[in-house]
Structure formats: C-alpha cells, structure tokens
C-alpha cells in the first residue's frame, strides 16, 4: 500500500493532565489496519479519547483509532446476541438494540464512548452491584495483533488471552469486534426515587440495604466542607413497568470546551451543592426520567467538566470493603481538616465481581471523588494514597492518571504481577503501549 494513512496530532487526556503530539491513524479497511500495524513498532488503541487517564496514546506509539469500524456484523434477536465492531459508540449501539428492547447494562457514563474502549477498560455502569462489569456480557472478541495476526478470543478459544484483554487497557492488541450477550430492557424510561441522608454511614446503610431491590442505586454526597461532609441524597432508578415505543436518540457532538478560567472553587462548589440539595429536599420524591439522563448523567451537562478550566481535574475512584469504609472516611476527614481540599463530586455505589489482573472490579463499595487540579489537592491526594494499603483499597488507574508506580504496584500487587507475566508470555516485545502503561511499568 503506497499511502501512509497516518497524521500527527496533539491529543489531551480527558482530565487534562497530559498532552502529547502523537501519530494517529483512522483505518477504515481491514487491509489498512494490518498495514499500519505492521509498519509501527509501538502501537496503542484509542476509542473516542474520553478516558480520564492517557490510555489511548503515547508519544512513542501509533494510536489506532477504529471509529470507522462501527458496523453491526451479526444479530440474533432470539438468542439475544450481537457482534459489533469496536468503534461503534454506545449511542449508535443503543439506537439499534433498544428497538428490540435489548441492551447491556454495564455502560460507562458517556454515550460517545466506543464499545472497544468500554471492553478495554472493563467498564461498569450504575447497576454494577447486580450486573457487574461489561466482562459479564462479553461472549467473544476478535483481536488483531501486529505479530500474531487475527485471534479469536472466548471462554472456549484462547481463554487466557480473552481474560487478559477484558480490562487489559488495549495492551494485548487491537480489539476489532466484540460479541455481546444482550439483556432485555422492557422500557427505556425510568422512575427515579430519592432519599435525603445526613451522613456517609447512612448512605452506606441505604445502598447496602436496597442493593438487591434496586439495580440502580448510588449516592451524591457533599464534601465541600467538614461541617456538611456526607450530607446528601441516595438515588434509586427503576425501569418503568409499562412498555413504551423506543424513539431513536439524537447524536450530538461532544461539547467539551474548557472554560478560560476555572469556575469551580470552594465558594462556587458550596453554593451549587447547597442549591442542588435544597432543590432535591423540596421537590417531589419521585420523578420520571428518560434513558439518556439516567444512564449518561453528564450528557448535555458537559459544563460540569468545562468548569474545571484548562488545568482540568483529577478523579479518584476507589474500591473498599464495606467493613472498612467508616474507618477510612474518618481518616479521610482528619486529612480533610488539615488540607481543606476542593472536592466537586463525592459519590458511593455498590460493585460486584472478582478482582483479577488490572480490572477495577470486586465485591466492594466504589467511592468516587472529583478534585480541582491544584497543588493543595494533589498533596491531599498523596496523603490519601497512603491509606490504600491500610484499608485494602483498590484505586482505578483508568480514572486517576496521577497514581504513582509504587502505589499502583502495592494496590494491585499479585494480580499486577500475574498480568505482567502473562502479557510478556504472549508478547515479548510489548508492542502495545500507552502513556499510562509506560509510566506504571506494565
């Protein structure tokens, strides 16, 4: 092939922590994918580049963007199975599957994320306590590797590699297509109920108690001051019981344009949180919500991210056992008192599954914090990092690009060693490398 199909471009991670001028290719034919892979020494795969951490690029790797591999290859309504190419976005996939009242419940939080990206990150949705991560919906994967060519992966075929690839951050090769087991969804409208809570302890009790009753249950808590710390709301989304006719979702362009100056600060967060809580206290306890606002809460509300400005933000997502949560929160609050960090978001939800390799998955509680990017917050976070070992906490490297190699190694421990051993067994040259994988020594 005489045409090169690559260009230089600057890519920035979603959290704005890292940018680089990289080489990128957007193949639209199988032959071009093979050709560009053969010509490149180091490769990494990029979906919509909406990962918080720089997982889809590195200055030494060719980023392969499979956005044009977005076709439906097989669909069987009876057996509820679909094979789709990795570049299809969640909204494109849902616009097809929901016509048949089918979907997968383990959807990450933004509709223009690609299926390939969701598989590589082993994504989870709001209902991860019941439905687990996307791993549970994956039947087969078609992988392309620069040296080994086309490889079919499933529980029956190349099982080890199948296991490494799900949640493997695109380090085993290029995920080209995925076969998913679909789940019925009778209605694409939801009823949202809420409960006002006074503390983290009460939030925890509520989400653990109603865990099996409501598939979508999560909290929003305040962390804008020590005084109001933990006050918040527990939200429960339930699928409406009557059936409805699915109307296709309109796709809009991403609206991620950071504001010129950061608008999130101690005062603005306190004001917005107080208003949000007051509105929820005095509004009806139950309301109907459409699919997009329940499953993709930031779709149309991109201003939340834009308000962090060009410096961006840091999201810390942690898995902790319920028995250790209260003690961890106590220590967190002690550090909070000293450092006074600026936290824009604090949320809890349940998760289920088995922690293996690099996967952010376990039968634990998932805590999320969003921080404004500044020195004080980074110092605070590095103090919190030190609590991970004590409380057996697993941090997400997909969300938190700041995590050091040491913290990462201590937290993922044996599973990381197993992953590294297995991946080197498969690919001695370690061809597929991202900024994060190089930084963390994977």
């Amino acid at each position, binding site marked *: 092939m005489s*045409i090169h199909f690559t*260009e230089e471009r600057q890519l920035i991670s979603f959290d704005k922590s890292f940018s680089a001028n990289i080489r990128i290719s*957007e*193949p639209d034919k199988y*032959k071009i994918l093979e050709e560009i892979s053969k010509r490149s020494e180091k490769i990494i795969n990029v979906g919509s580049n909406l990962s918080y951490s720089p997982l889809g690029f590195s200055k030494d790797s060719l980023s392969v963007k499979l956005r044009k591999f977005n076709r*439906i290859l097989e669909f069987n309504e009876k057996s509820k199975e679909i094979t789709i*190419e990795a570049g299809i976005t969640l909204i494109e996939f849902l616009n097809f599957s929901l016509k048949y009242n089918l979907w997968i419940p383990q959807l990450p939080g933004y509709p223009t994320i690609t299926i390939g990206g969701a598989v590589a990150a082993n994504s989870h949705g709001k209902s991860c306590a019941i439905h687990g991560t996307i791993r549970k919906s994956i039947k087969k994967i078609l992988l392309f590797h620069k040296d080994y060519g086309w490889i079919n992966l499933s529980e029956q075929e190349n099982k080890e590699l199948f296991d490494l690839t799900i949640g493997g951050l695109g380090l085993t090769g290029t995920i080209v297509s995925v076969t998913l087991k679909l789940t019925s969804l009778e209605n694409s409208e939801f009823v949202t109920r809420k409960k006002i809570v006074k503390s983290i302890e009460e939030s925890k009790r509520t989400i653990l108690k109603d865990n099996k009753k409501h598939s979508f249950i999560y909290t929003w808590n305040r962390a804008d001051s020590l005084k109001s710390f933990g006050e918040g709301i527990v939200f429960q989304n339930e699928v409406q019981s009557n059936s409805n006719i699915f109307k296709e979702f309109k796709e809009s362009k991403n609206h991620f344009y950071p504001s010129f100056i950061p608008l999130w600060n101690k005062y603005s967060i306190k004001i917005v949180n107080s208003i949000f809580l007051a509105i929820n206290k005095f509004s009806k306890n139950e309301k109907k919500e459409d699919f997009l606002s329940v499953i993709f809460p930031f779709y149309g509300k991109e201003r939340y991210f834009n308000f962090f400005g060009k410096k961006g933000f840091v999201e810390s997502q942690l898995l902790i056992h319920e028995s250790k949560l209260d003690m961890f929160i106590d220590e967190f609050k002690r550090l909070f008192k000293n450092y006074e960090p600026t936290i824009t978001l604090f949320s809890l939800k349940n998760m289920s599954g088995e922690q293996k390799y690099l996967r952010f998955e376990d039968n634990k509680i998932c805590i999320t914090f969003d921080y404004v990017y500044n020195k004080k917050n980074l110092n605070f976070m590095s103090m919190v990092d030190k609590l991970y070992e004590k409380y057996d906490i697993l941090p997400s490297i997909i969300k938190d690009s700041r995590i050091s190699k040491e913290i990462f190694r201590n937290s993922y421990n044996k599973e990381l060693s197993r992953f590294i051993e297995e991946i080197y067994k498969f690919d001695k040259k370690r061809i597929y490398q991202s900024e994060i994988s190089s930084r963390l020594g994977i």
Partner: protein
Amino acid sequence: MRYLIIGASSGLGRELANKFAKENNNLVLISRDERDLNAIKSDLEIKYNVNVNILSLDFSSLEEVNKKLLSQNNIIENLDGIIFPVGMMFSEDNLNLDTDRMNKLVNANFISIVHTIQKVKKFLLKKNNACIIGFGSVSGYLGRGINTTYAGAKRALESYFESLAFDRELRNINIQFYTLGYLETNLSFGKDLKLPKASVRKLSERVYNNKNLKFEKKYYPSFWQLIYLIIKIIPFSILRKFNSE
C-alpha cells in the same frame, strides 16, 4: 430499487451505500477486499432490512470486470442505477510512472467505468428514473506533477459524462457528474492540504437527493467551481510560469 455502487468499501462509496440502504434500496456493492464487503453487507442488511449483494473484484482489471460483474445478467439486468465513487491512486504517479501501473490507473478511473456503462445502459433504458452517477476530481482541472495519470483519467471521465448527457438516446436516464475537492476520507488523511476537507456524509445525502434530476454537473464543495472558473480565465502561459516557479 436496486443500485450498483462501485468502490463501496470506504470513504464516499461506503457513505453512499449507507444512505441508499437507509432509504430502503437494495444494493450491489463492489470492492477489492471481501472482508470489508462482508462487514458492510451485514451492517446494512441488519440495520435497514435491505438486500445487499457483494462482488469482490479489482476494478482496474477489465478481465475481472467482465468475468465477475458483466457476465452476471441477473445482476446487471435488474439495476435502477449505477454509481461510481471509485478512485485509484499511487503515490508514485508522476510523469515517470511505469506503463503497468499507468494502465491500472486509467482502467480503474476511466476505462472500466466507461466499459461498464456501455454494457449496462441498455438495461437502464428500460427503467423509469434510472441513474448513472460519476465522480471527477479537481485534480483534473490542470496538468500536474503528482497524480498525473489519475488527473488525466478524471478529466477524460468528465468529458465522457458530458458525452453521455448529449446523447439523445440516453435522455431517459438521469446522469450526474460531481467534481470533487478534498474529502474527509483516508485518501486525504495526514496530507497537508491548503483548503478544507468536506464531509462525505453530506455529499452522500446530496447525491441521493439529486439522483432523479436530469443532467447535473456539480462541484463539491461548491467553492471549487470558482477556482475552476479562475483557472479557465487565466492564460495557460501565465499558469505555466506560476507553476514552474
């Protein structure tokens, strides 16, 4: 309705296949790589419930065009239109290109198109509102140092489509010819182009909506028409001087 799209596996061809299928038309798709064709066939049949036939062949080989496409009467007798978003390029295409590759370029970009039209037009004449849609390139405006043979073939194709439009016998067939500027496809990916690339999705919609019009010769994006007029007005001696500098 059933349309034949040649060069359907990527870029404009793929968008046209998607648009025509979305509007409930059956398709016959031609491209070189069977894997791409199979993926497009599955996608369109599953999404739009239409019938898609695929033929994998090299359009720069007249032998393959005859053997794999034009010998299949069940396909060519039942078409309502043929669309040629096909284009072959070599980065080595200059004044010194070897004859083998020159032949390939002329075949893929001109002779195979003309040959196919000549064989299929008698069947299209029997249909109401049949169409033949061709695509030229702004590279055919003026002689050039790169894509030399490609540009020559595209200029010849434009002339051939004008001839089709003049033919009284073909008055019942809707003929359109689009002269294309830079498009958002893999052919322009990574190239430092001075003018913007246009959306293939919008172009495919325009082509679909215009398919029942009588002879139309259009420029896409339309500002290229102005550039074309300017080039035509400037004396060749000045263009030559400007170009050699």
